[in-house]
């Protein structure tokens, strides 16, 4: 199949403008004739549902949470980028574009990234107008900080709860449309299949999580804004319910899955303490602005951190990267932490941690200054570990955080199935092989507020629609499929609970397809994952029934998909014989242990087509060309 990215011609800075002009518009009075189903209510989903309803489309929005406000975007801490150049420090749309393409290690589509940078300023304006309480200076102007990997101050923030405040803004915009009857909203409703009729997306099948009833929803377009798949690793910073089911089932209906192996490991998380751990907690990497990362110079040094004198500490990021220091990109910071721990310099009870030390900053600015900026993060650390980060350095270790991969989309954010649009973390589009800090919120809201409202109109205005309702045989067939899958999961009655098998999958993927990968490990994982999947279908126990609120059943559906996605992730990692961004293949590194790209062979998006469970997916390539940001070896020295 030909992968047409539909990137507009013309100079980079004119592409989006000319594209918007060339797109067909839907007549205002005809908009209400179109029904759009938006799945998920995070930043991308809420902003899309609200904005599309404001335009006059009929919108149905659903989420598996009990309220739209609980989507996982709410957990984002640090901030949101926009090149407003309020700090007068040389920022520009072009610089944000350039930083993002470079940070993504030249594996993103230039035109998409440029557009993202272009619309990001409007996001700040929109959120301010909604009443989002961004940090302000004493004159009342918006405050900025520099953030993970950026040398300019372009990050807008609301203490350590930026995601929460942005999501509440979008949720409130959505609530307004619900109250006006422009959005039909369903909570505790989970999409379990996509319905494609004559090659066009025509609806979804979803399960009401309270009474177990299966519902069909028919529409003219479906927008998936269902987040990332980091929980395939079981332990991640994602919320517990985050899953890949919506995108995976769409993949099985024909949507290509792009770059699944691009999974980001975040450097500043609270280390694992025991086998009972249910999730990992991230602490905003804004902490790296003022905290210093170090390990003892002596291997296996068991002294408490405050007894280790200054000259016996190795501030390894400052030593290795004098110009970026503790602010190197996430992948670099994570890998270096793994290396020092693997080499025996790790700290804490498990020796899989490094110190993040605020002592210098507290001496320089005082505790109150630190508390004002990072208070909630220090509280969080204390609640989880029982330790006081003001009195002793915090311990951190990398954890799975974000997935750059996702369903393949063209410039219009449409997948390979016509009428299926994918936004936010669920798509693959803007971050290449590594996402910069404070860029996820930016992308989610850019997609929802400022891109999909334009691009979906072009599809609706140009596609031909036959009248279809939920009585169509394709809906019946999809409903039956979901019911059969549910009965099958409930009928196995084996011995192993869902979470136990999920943890095992996570361990396999973390060990063989985690922060560092090699061919032997990946081949091993390609044996282990299918074997585990086979055991799941033989030995899982899902108590309870199909007809009521059953959280074990919800998890079983999601794990069934993770067990298939896990295999694709490994297949993708094995095929990409280079290192780039977060994808670090040990066989391909520079003399300085940095990721070594192979632009000759791998400057493309790997888009995988589903061919059946246990059957290798088929590879399609979208070649990437860089006319503006010329690929170079990333160097943060």
């Amino acid at each position, binding site marked *: 199949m030909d992968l047409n990215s539909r990137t507009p011609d013309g100079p980079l800075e004119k592409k989006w403008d000319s594209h918007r002009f060339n797109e067909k518009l839907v007549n205002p009075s005809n908009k209400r004739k179109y029904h759009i189903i938006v799945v998920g209510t995070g930043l991308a989903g809420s902003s899309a549902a*609200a*904005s599309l309803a404001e335009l006059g489309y009929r919108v149905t929005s659903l989420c598996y*949470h*009990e*309220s*739209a*406000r*609980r*989507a*996982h975007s*709410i*957990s984002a801490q640090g901030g949101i980028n926009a090149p407003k150049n309020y700090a007068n420090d040389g920022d520009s749309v072009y610089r944000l574009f350039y930083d993002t393409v470079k940070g993504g290690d030249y594996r993103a589509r230039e035109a998409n990234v440029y557009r993202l940078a272009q619309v990001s300023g*409007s996001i*700040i*304006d*929109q959120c*301010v*107008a*909604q*009443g989002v*309480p*961004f*940090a302000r200076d*004493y*004159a*009342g102007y918006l405050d900025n900080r520099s953030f993970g990997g950026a040398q300019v101050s372009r990050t807008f923030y*609301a203490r350590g*709860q930026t995601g*929460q*405040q942005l999501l509440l803004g979008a949720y*409130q*915009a959505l*609530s*307004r449309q619900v*109250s006006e009857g422009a959005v039909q909203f369903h909570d505790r409703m989970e999409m379990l299949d996509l319905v494609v009729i004559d090659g066009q997306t025509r609806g979804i099948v979803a399960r009401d999580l309270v009474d177990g009833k299966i519902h069909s929803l028919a529409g003219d377009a479906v927008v998936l804004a269902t987040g990332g798949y980091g929980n395939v690793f079981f332990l991640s910073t994602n*919320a*517990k319910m985050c899953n890949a089911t919506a995108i995976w089932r769409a993949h099985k209906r024909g949507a290509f899955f792009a770059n699944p192996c691009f999974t980001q490991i975040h450097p500043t998380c609270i280390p694992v303490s*025991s086998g*009972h*751990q*249910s999730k990992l907690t*991230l602490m905003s990497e804004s902490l790296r602005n003022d905290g210093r990362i170090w390990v003892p110079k002596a291997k296996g040094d068991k002294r408490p951190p405050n007894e280790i004198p200054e000259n016996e500490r190795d501030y390894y990021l400052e030593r290795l990267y004098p110009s970026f220091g503790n602010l190197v990109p996430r992948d670099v910071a994570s890998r270096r932490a793994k290396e020092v721990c693997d080499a025996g310099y790790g700290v804490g009870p498990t020796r899989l941690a490094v110190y993040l030390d605020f002592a210098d900053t507290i001496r320089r600015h005082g505790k109150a200054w630190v508390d004002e900026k990072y208070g909630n993060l220090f*509280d*969080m650390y204390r*609640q*989880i570990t*029982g330790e006081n980060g003001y009195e002793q350095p915090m311990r951190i270790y990398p954890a799975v955080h974000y997935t750059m991969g996702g369903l393949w989309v063209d410039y219009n954010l449409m997948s390979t199935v016509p009428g299926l649009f994918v936004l936010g973390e669920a798509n693959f589009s803007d971050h290449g092989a590594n996402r910069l800090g404070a860029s996820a919120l930016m992308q989610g809201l850019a997609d929802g*507020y400022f891109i999909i409202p334009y691009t979906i109109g072009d599809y609706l205005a140009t596609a031909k629609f036959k009248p279809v309702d939920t009585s169509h045989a394709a809906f019946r067939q999809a409903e039956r499929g979901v019911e059969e899958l549910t009965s099958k999961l409930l009928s196995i009655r084996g*011995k*192993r*609970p*869902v*979470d136990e098998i999920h943890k095992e999958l996570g361990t396999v993927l973390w060990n063989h397809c985690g922060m560092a990968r090699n061919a032997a490990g990946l081949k091993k994982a390609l044996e282990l994952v299918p074997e585990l999947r086979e055991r799941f279908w033989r030995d899982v*126990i899902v*108590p*309870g029934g199909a007809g*009521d*609120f*059953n959280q*074990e059943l919800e998890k079983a559906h999601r794990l069934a998909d993770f067990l298939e996605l896990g295999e694709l992730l490994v297949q993708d990692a094995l095929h990409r014989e280079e290192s780039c961004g977060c994808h670090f293949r040990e066989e391909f590194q520079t003399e300085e242990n940095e990721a070594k790209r192979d632009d000759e062979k791998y400057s493309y998006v790997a888009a995988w087509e589903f061919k059946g469970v246990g059957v290798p997916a088929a590879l399609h390539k979208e070649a990437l060309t860089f006319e503006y940001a010329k690929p170079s070896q990333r160097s943060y020295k």
Partner: protein
Amino acid sequence: MRVTLKVWRQKDRASEGGFISYQLSEVSPDMSFLEMLDLLNLDLARKGEETVAFDHDCREGICGSCSLVINGRPHGPLRGVATCQLHMRSFKDGDSIVIEPWRAAAFPIVKDLVVDRSALDRIIESGGFVSTRTGGAPDGNAILVPKPKADEAFEAAACIGCGACVAACKNASAMLFVGAKVSQLALLPQGQAERKARVLRMVAQMEAEGFGACSNTSACEAECPKEISVDHIARLNRELIRAKIFS
């Protein structure tokens, strides 16, 4: 450590519920409270018994999903901490722990410890927003917000919508929840145009949902995981009077 749990089990909204006791050994003090419940559920699932339903998601104290009245206190014994951030080191070996759902007429039980808090969403739908459309917003710095106002608005906006304030109040009042949103938007210049209509509509919706009147005991503030101040209830009352007199 060993603990005895007395957990409220209820099949669905219509069924009658009751307490069931469970014994757990091998609880680690470093486990979170919800990881302790995960342990219980793994045991139950292995035996093929229905697991205890409870709401949870981010487990970082921000999504507002988790609830639970633990030994009579919403979100358990610690001040300013949601259930998901509570750890077993706050309990002793041999403790008995009673776990109940939020109890309020406006929060019907879905199953076991899970309640339906959509009444809070309907209050926001009634007016808890600024009616701005996508597009059309002026430059962010065109709207100046003095830092003290921005900070105070942030304190109110930090509400996670968990409903602990309602569960803590003997009248099951939602005044702190409503006060926090009314206060945030009344403090900011962006909220001025709809200031009066907003408070009238939100209070009317709160009453229609069956939440009680303010008990004036400040139990809500004491149990709020984000420690939102009852000052915002005072502002809500002022806003309401202002709207009624000057409308």
